[in-house]
């Protein structure tokens, strides 16, 4: 290949051009709705903030899914792990905030927590994120330890974890006694007069932090290089001394962790209620966000920034469709079609560049 020809193709293939392309697609979709939705309602500050709040849950869970898909895996249990986190948070808050209901053995601890409401919130966060992380670890153990297909394992745990969440909640919504800062993670700040947040909802800041950390992990740590290697060619990774099993275990555990964090956001987004049926079918949105973001199902490819753009694109389509007054079935068809179009476009682009 001559130098000039390569310069072109390297520009064509460069990460930033790729991300820019996806960003432009997002802008086009946004402008489409901005023009078509009546009365300029689509580009109000309130609506923009809503889009951000809504996409934060997908995008945060998407961080973990990005790692999993780069490592040539898949995790169908993210929706259930988010729900597990939501229920665990609500149940812990309930325990911390409730008076009198505690057993004798835990009475002292219970009273102590009751006296310090901040402690209850911290415990709830730890329990929620911890539960989802453990669920992710279990996924990883099954996949690595029993050498099962990730698709099958997580299809199973999707049901198991959802069932667990429902069982913990007795199949009813849990209403924690008082409002906590967890419950206000996703409260609007841009458009609220009473807000004390910095410009954006706290949850969105958490997402931004997560994006930075995960990007850094993928790009500058050996774990990141190993994840790409395992996804691109597992045999090569093994030959080069990468501990393939350990890498996968970490990846699925991290996916659980990010679902736990997404669960905190979801808890707040649905109004501080522990709903066992929340985040149903979110795995599809999350996977779609990662794929629209440029990750390849065959592994070895993908980026955190792409996933963020993917999550925003899906949310814009979703809210846009709603505000256009499209019936739900049209929305579903449009989003499905966009996913297929995005993947088909990637395929064409790949063929051209190799």
């Amino acid at each position, binding site marked *: *290949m001559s*130098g000039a020809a*390569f310069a072109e193709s*390297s520009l064509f*293939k460069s990460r930033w051009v790729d991300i820019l392309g996806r960003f432009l697609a997002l802008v086009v979709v946004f402008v489409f709705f901005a023009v078509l939705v009546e009365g300029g309602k689509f580009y109000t500050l309130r609506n923009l903030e809503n889009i951000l709040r809504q996409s934060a849950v997908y995008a945060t869970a998407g961080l973990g899914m990005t790692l999993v898909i780069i490592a040539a895996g898949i995790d169908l249990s993210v929706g259930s792990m988010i729900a597990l986190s939501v229920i665990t948070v609500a149940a812990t808050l309930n325990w911390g905030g409730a008076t009198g209901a505690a057993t004798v053995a835990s009475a002292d601890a219970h009273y102590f927590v009751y006296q310090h409401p901040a402690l209850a919130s911290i415990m709830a966060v730890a329990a929620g994120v911890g539960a989802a992380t453990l669920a992710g670890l279990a996924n990883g153990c099954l996949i690595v330890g029993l050498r099962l297909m990730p698709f099958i394992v997580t299809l199973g745990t999707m049901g198991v974890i959802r069932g667990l969440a429902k069982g913990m909640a007795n199949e009813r919504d849990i209403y924690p006694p008082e409002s906590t800062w967890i419950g206000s993670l996703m409260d609007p700040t841009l458009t609220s007069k009473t807000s004390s947040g910095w410009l954006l909802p706290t949850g969105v800041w958490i997402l931004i932090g997560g994006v930075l950390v995960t990007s850094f992990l993928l*790009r*500058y*740590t*050996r774990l*990141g*290089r190993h994840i*790409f*290697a395992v996804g*691109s*060619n597992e*045999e*090569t*990774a*093994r*030959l*080069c*001394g*990468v*501990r393939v099993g350990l890498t996968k275990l970490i990846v699925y555990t991290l996916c659980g962790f990010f679902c736990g964090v997404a669960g905190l956001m979801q808890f707040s987004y649905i109004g501080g209620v522990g709903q066992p049926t929340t985040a149903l079918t979110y795995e599809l949105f999350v996977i779609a966000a990662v794929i629209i973001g440029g990750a390849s199902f065959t592994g*070895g*490819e993908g980026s955190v920034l792409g996933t963020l753009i993917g999550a925003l694109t899906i949310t814009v389509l979703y809210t846009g469709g709603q505000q256009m007054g499209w019936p739900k079935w049209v929305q579903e068809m449009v989003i499905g079609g966009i996913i297929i179009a995005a993947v088909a476009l990637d395929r064409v682009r790949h063929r051209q560049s*190799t």
Partner: protein
Amino acid sequence: MTNRLEMHGVRKCFGATRALAGVDIKVAPGEVLALVGENGAGKSTLMKVLSGAHTPDAGEMFLDGEPYRPGNPLRARESGVAMIYQELSLAPHISVMENILLGVEPSRGPLLDWRTMRRRAARALHEVGLDHVDPSTPVRRLSIAQQQLVEIARAVALECRVLVLDEPTSSLTLPDIEKLFELIRNLKARRISIIYISHFLEEMQKISDRFTVLRDGQTVGTGITRETPVERIIALMVGRDVDELYPRTSRMPGEVILEVKDLAGEGKPTAASLALHRGEVFGVAGLVGAGRTELLRSIFGLAPVRRGDIRVAAYSGAAPPHKRWAQRVGMVSEDRKAEGLALGLSIADNLTLARLDGLGPWRLVFPSRQRAACRPWIEKISIKCAGPRQQLADLSGGNQQKVAIARLLHADVDVLLLDEPTRGIDVGSKAQIYQLIDELAMRGKAVLIVSSYLPELLGACDRIAVMCRGRLSETRPRADWDERQLMLVATGQEES
């Protein structure tokens, strides 16, 4: 009498590679023709031409005097040319009878005629001596030897005229081989012509009437097996000059750095012992499937060790790959595509993957430093590329292989395990790799090469051992070997 099958001047090129450069073959009805040649002589391409998978660029083929031009494998099968490949091509989950009549199922209108199917399958099974096998058994329940017979039964059921067997004994036990030979004699009696491809010259002497030798894609000799001494056949197979490809500075072997004692893996190897010194290039010869690759993989921790000891410098025992790298042992895989390299990643990622140390502070890995670490190697062993960012899939085979070897250089290993390091690459790249191996040995590194290409082993190695059916022969200095000797030991003609 017309020949059953004739091939005249068959040629086939793939890009710049000449796979077949003029092949002539004749088989009479009821005759067994042995087709022999070293790895890469063009046997498998010839099979593919015969089976219709490849269309020849030039040449003619005749089947019973009629021009034979199969456009695809199905047509070849319909014309009566059947192939039994080394890798069996049965569908493991479906029944024996469905496998036998796959694609030609008898039917009554839109429905399958199970009764006819069973009857025809049973008859075919009887012909190959599998009377006791129920035609409705799923194929996966049968042994490998039985599966092979089912494949032959498939050919018989289709009333084939020419049966091609590719290395049919490579995974069979001795009694099964005897049974197979018995069957071949029966098929001969039915005037079926058989082309028998094998590395094992003893077998070919036992079963064949005539032989044809291929070398570098050409027919270089043919004759009657009974009247030809085996030495003559080997001479025809290898007859090449060792040219000046192999630079060789005088080296002084140092202390032993890798010692393998009576190593046995799962299946193969069954018994292998060797001692590799610093500053030495050690060759392992043998046929494909003899257990050479498995030997390297067991040493490197990619395959299980069942018995024996592996000692690397001060470390003893089996160890997984990440420990081997830490012990400064590195390996190049024989299969670049499936294992050796991640073709979707960049040169920089591939080259540095085995050692990501020192590429940033706090054990971090900076992509810019990864690229910087690659540049000296790209220059030193002249990897033709646009830069370290380039995707590996864009490189030629030779340059990909250089990246695979450069990975070991970057990791600065002391022991290099190279499995077929020059397979499928151009002569220019080969020469550079030999030069590099020589240089490494001079700097006190130890190199273990597995290769099927004998001139390469004789040219580049200091000492050589031969693997045959899982056993490694004694090690002898290069000067004590010649191609004929290596071939004799590799084909099990001679204990060394």
